[in-house]
């Protein structure tokens, strides 16, 4: 195990074990030709407690294994101070690249600047940093997600009808979703967006504004909720006022939303993000960078859409 000895000079043994064992498992250490890991990449995730980040981490690990990169994975657990410390450790350790999922888009700036000074390339995944120099940012394509929601509604409503958006226009990711949604709907001349209201992204407020919209538009056919709390709040309102003939599309496919879709409520479909793909793409961009091809500043990752059919198919499997 020449590979093991090479690194053990620098890092405590327990840490190597923690990082390398899954790595070895994934690369298949049974293979005869045990290559040296070509690059060491420091990773600081937002958290390891959420399913989303678990999937993202898996994506990072599998892609790193394919490229024979070694990952040192840490997590901020929403603590910016902790994350800054982790980045500083990576700099001190002189890793070859750093992947950050910022705990705070602004606050992480000074730590990234330290990596910049040490000439270590920094990549961000899922959440962007507003400060410091980042080679490349990889995140879900929110515009495409909104577009898919719009196309789904257009298909369900056969290209015509009145549509409302339960919005949260203070977040850039949401502005993108709504932009994509509006772009898709604009292709159908018989579909009209009759309302665009702020549900503040939480279920109680979304329910309130959706109730108002239902009053203002007796002929409403579709609702787009920019996240699942917005979509579920709209569903609460639709159920309370016993309105039929309304299709709702949500975003994120959280368990309560999936449950509502499966129960054949007015919530018909949900846009899903693929965190695993975000992880894989990030490693891929690092590889491009190392091979001398500067990647794009922002790399959008494709999203998908699920409805009752696709969900029940995967559930029975």
């Amino acid at each position, binding site marked *: 195990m020449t590979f093991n000895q090479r690194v053990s000079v620098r890092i405590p043994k327990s840490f190597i074990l923690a990082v390398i064992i899954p790595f070895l498992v994934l690369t298949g250490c049974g293979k005869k030709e045990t290559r040296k890991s070509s690059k060491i990449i420091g990773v600081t995730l937002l958290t390891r407690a959420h399913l989303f980040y678990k999937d993202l981490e898996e994506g990072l690990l599998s892609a790193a294994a394919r490229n024979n990169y070694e990952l040192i994975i840490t997590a901020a657990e929403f603590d910016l101070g902790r994350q800054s410390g982790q980045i500083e450790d990576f700099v001190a350790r002189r890793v070859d690249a750093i992947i950050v999922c910022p705990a705070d888009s602004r606050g992480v700036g000074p730590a990234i600047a330290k990596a910049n000074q040490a000439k270590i390339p920094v990549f961000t995944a899922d959440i962007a940093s507003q400060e410091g120099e980042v080679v490349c940012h990889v995140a879900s394509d929110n515009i495409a997600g909104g577009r898919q929601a719009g196309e789904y509604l257009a298909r369900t409503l056969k290209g015509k009808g009145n549509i409302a958006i339960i919005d949260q*226009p203070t977040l850039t990711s949401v502005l993108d979703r709504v932009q994509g949604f509006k772009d898709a709907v604009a292709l159908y001349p018989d579909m009209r967006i009759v309302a665009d209201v702020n549900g*503040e992204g939480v279920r109680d*407020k979304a329910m309130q504004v959706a109730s108002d919209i239902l*009053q203002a538009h007796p002929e409403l056919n579709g609702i787009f909720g920019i996240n699942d*709390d917005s979509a579920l709040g709209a569903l609460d309102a639709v159920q309370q006022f016993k309105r039929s003939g309304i299709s709702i599309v949500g975003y994120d496919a959280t368990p309560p939303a999936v*449950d509502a879709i499966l129960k054949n409520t007015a919530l018909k479909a949900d846009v899903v993000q693929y965190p695993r793909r975000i992880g894989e793409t990030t490693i891929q961009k690092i590889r491009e960078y190392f091979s001398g091809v500067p990647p794009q500043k922002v790399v959008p990752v494709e999203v998908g859409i699920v409805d009752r059919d696709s969900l029940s198919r995967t559930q029975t499997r």
Partner: protein
Amino acid sequence: MVSSVVGVDFMTSRKNILSRILSQYGISLALLIEIILFSRLSPFFFTTENILNVTLQISITAIIAAGMTFVILTAGIDLSVGALVALSGVLATSVLKLPIPLIYSFPLFLATGILVGVFSGWLSAFFITRFNVTPFIVTLALMSIWRGGAYLYTGGRPVWGLPHAFSMLGGGRVAGIPLPTLIMLAVYAAAYIVLQYTRFGRHVYAVGGNQEAARLAGINTKRVLRQVYILCGVLSALSGMLLASRMNSGQPNAGLMYELDVIAAVVVGGASLFGGRGSIVGTFVGAMLIGVSRNGLNLLNVNSYIQQIIVGLVILVAVMLDQMRKR
């Protein structure tokens, strides 16, 4: 309602006809103007269904505002109400997850929610009366603690998958009127009677007017304070339970910033933050004014950024009218 003693002296001058009208009707007039305006602008505004919708919308904050009126009458404030909506909502709904029939779990649900409200109110009053910390700081701290507690308890995820029948509490109707609306009306009727016709009601005004004088007059001011904070806590918890039922889930992020809507309703309703002045009817009109503004602007599909500005202006104008009334 507060008697309008001031303003009567100026009846001689013609210019003061306006202030006389204002002295009689104050913000009720503003509400009326708003209702007429929206009725003209939207055909969907003045319909039975939408009026019921508005009362359903405001029921959650209006019920809290009734409790807040008592607190503000004593020159206090309770900033923890929004967080309490979330905490009582998630704690009470998690009782419904127990594997027992709803007939048994529902009373437990009510008891849990109300207990949370009583405890929070008692705790506020304890710090306020025992350690002489200002209500603003005590309840600001509790706001943070309850909100954090709600997130911690649920791990940031909603409590969901509740029995479907549970949604009847917030979603049911009696004689076509939503249940939360009826509960709100009952709360206001009770609060009106308590404040106008009971000794406790008079003590609340007395403590707010001059706490020291009230104490010297033999009123147990600490007990009055304890009672008003517990009342406000219980009504917040009641709102939290109604809201949870309307969403058929306990949301740890429910009730964000409700405290501001609630305080605005009370102050727009003519109450003084320095205590001793305010009325239950005024608070109800204040809550209606804010609720009607939101509803009307949504019906007209006004951009949400502009909505925030307009609601702020409505509050300013209403309070200004009230000040003119007092002059």
